[in-house]
């Protein structure tokens, strides 16, 4: 299927609007992506026609919902090439996935142990580990990032030893756009017998994710950053791990048998899905991934790389332009600063011109501060962004900088 941005844009109703009287140019996709009608319809169809609680009804509606729900789990497992669908645990999003893991790994981490995270982590893949280390008197070690935005793999190699209980890094940085060599990282960690969590929040929309090829023990992502609704996410966990680890929350489908004195817990994946799940969200996530699959992730990546390159080149024409994040392996995220211009001012003026970007720390305060900055402006691209929008954006930056200087 040829990649036609014009046709794609027709699927995203939200894009067809004006803000401050100007056509919306939505470049805050790393925060959340817009949803195609297919996804919106799937969610609404579920509530119109199928809504009922899964796994416990004898009636037809419940059986249909359960079937669809489990079918979606299988489809999502296939999409990321998990060995088994029971390795897909539904959560509210990446943040909950990481917190779930940080809770159930409590006993795995003993006083004096080490957890390794990278300096480019989102707060959601930093603070849960920082807090776990605090509770367990363990040490949180930070894998440094160089000025280009590349992870220091030598540091990782040197730091791996039997005291290390987990390596947690993102697949793609939400600030720098760096694509981390996750397969290599997993290989290094596994050679030392250390399990790995990959935070894939930014990855699903931009690159192929094959959890078996990567080899990660755990892989977390959010639906809303890959064209699915908010409030649905996944924790992929290898069953050899998840079978051994204790439950996270108690009640509902995660119970097998219970008396007032005793309880046995359900099998995977239900053991980790206490309470009524977000069935509509799961079905719509399946639809979102189908949407991406139909367009082809390689095609999407090619298109977004083109936008990134064009935007980067055009921004560099601005005097005093500083691109933050220059890793050779980079995608879809463009962080920048202009000498003498405050990110907040630039963001405010861009908004007036209809261009939606993000300014500030991007939930990665330690990284930004370590780079000696107090924030950046970030434009992030998605499959529906056009080359014309890149022109509008870079012209708007030039205009704003002229006003501010």
């Amino acid at each position, binding site marked *: 299927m040829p990649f036609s941005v014009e046709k794609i844009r027709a699927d995203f109703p939200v894009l067809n609007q004006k803000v*401050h009287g100007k056509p919306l140019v939505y470049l805050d996709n790393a925060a959340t992506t817009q949803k195609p009608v297919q996804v919106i319809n799937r969610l609404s169809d579920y509530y119109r026609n199928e809504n009922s609680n899964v796994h416990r009804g004898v009636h037809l509606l419940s059986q249909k919902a359960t079937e669809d729900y489990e079918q979606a789990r299988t489809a999502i497992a296939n999409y990321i090439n998990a060995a088994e669908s029971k390795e897909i645990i539904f959560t509210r999003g990446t943040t909950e996935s990481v917190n779930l893991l940080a809770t159930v790994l409590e006993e795995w981490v003993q006083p004096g142990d080490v957890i390794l995270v990278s300096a480019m982590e989102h707060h959601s893949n930093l603070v849960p580990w920082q807090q776990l280390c605090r509770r367990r008197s363990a040490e949180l070690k930070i894998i440094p990032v160089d000025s280009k935005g590349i992870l220091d793999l030598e540091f990782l190699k040197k730091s791996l030893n039997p005291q290390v209980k987990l390596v947690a890094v993102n697949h793609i940085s939400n600030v720098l756009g760096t694509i981390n060599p996750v397969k290599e990282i997993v290989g290094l960690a596994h050679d030392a017998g250390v399990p790995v969590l990959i935070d894939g929040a930014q990855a699903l929309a931009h690159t192929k994710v094959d959890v078996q090829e990567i080899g990660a023990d755990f892989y977390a992502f959010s639906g809303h950053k890959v064209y699915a609704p908010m409030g649905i996410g996944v924790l992929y966990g290898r069953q050899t791990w998840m079978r051994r680890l204790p439950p996270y929350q108690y009640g509902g489908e995660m119970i097998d048998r219970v008396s007032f004195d005793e309880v046995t817990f359900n099998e995977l994946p239900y053991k980790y899905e206490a309470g009524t799940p977000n069935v509509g969200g799961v079905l719509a996530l399946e639809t979102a991934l189908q949407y991406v699959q139909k367009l082809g992730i390689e095609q999407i990546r090619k298109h977004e790389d083109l936008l990134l390159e064009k935007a980067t080149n055009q921004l560099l024409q601005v005097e005093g332009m500083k691109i933050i994040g220059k890793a050779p392996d980079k995608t879809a995220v463009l962080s920048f600063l202009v000498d003498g211009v*405050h*990110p*907040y*001012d630039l*963001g*405010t*003026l861009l908004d*007036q011109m209809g261009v939606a970007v993000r*300014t*500030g*720390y991007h939930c990665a305060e330690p990284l930004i501060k370590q780079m000696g900055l*107090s*924030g950046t402006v970030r434009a992030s691209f998605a499959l529906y962004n056009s080359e014309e929008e890149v022109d509008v954006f870079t012209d708007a930056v030039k205009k704003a900088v002229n*006003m*501010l200087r």
Partner: protein
Amino acid sequence: MTIKEKEQSVMEEFSLFDDWMDKYAYLIELGKELPVIDEKYKDNQHLISGCQSRVWLHAGLEEDKVVFTADSDAVITKGIVSLLIRVLSGHRPDEILDTDMEFLEKIGLKEHLSPTRANGLISMVKQIQLYAKAFQIKLNQ
């Protein structure tokens, strides 16, 4: 001039601009112009932290009037800060406490005072009111 009269004059100034660019160019000009605070007050004690831009605010009492000086690291924020100072500084605490800052809405800058902007302005307004309250108590003693 009373606070109301000052608000009126700000609104009249802004009514001259037909498009956003002129309005923001004016705010930027205001922001660039004003050396509004003594450098020694630009410390952590006077910092109102927004996650996006930072604001420093100092308040002093001159007879029965509160005098505010302030600054921000972002120039648009600073422009709005200077409007707030122009309207509110030099008035009695009770007058300040009676003000609803509606003029910012009328000149189309209300969104800058939204808590989600995290630019420090809404906290600045709250801090101004706290100072006014504190000075009011002090004056009544």
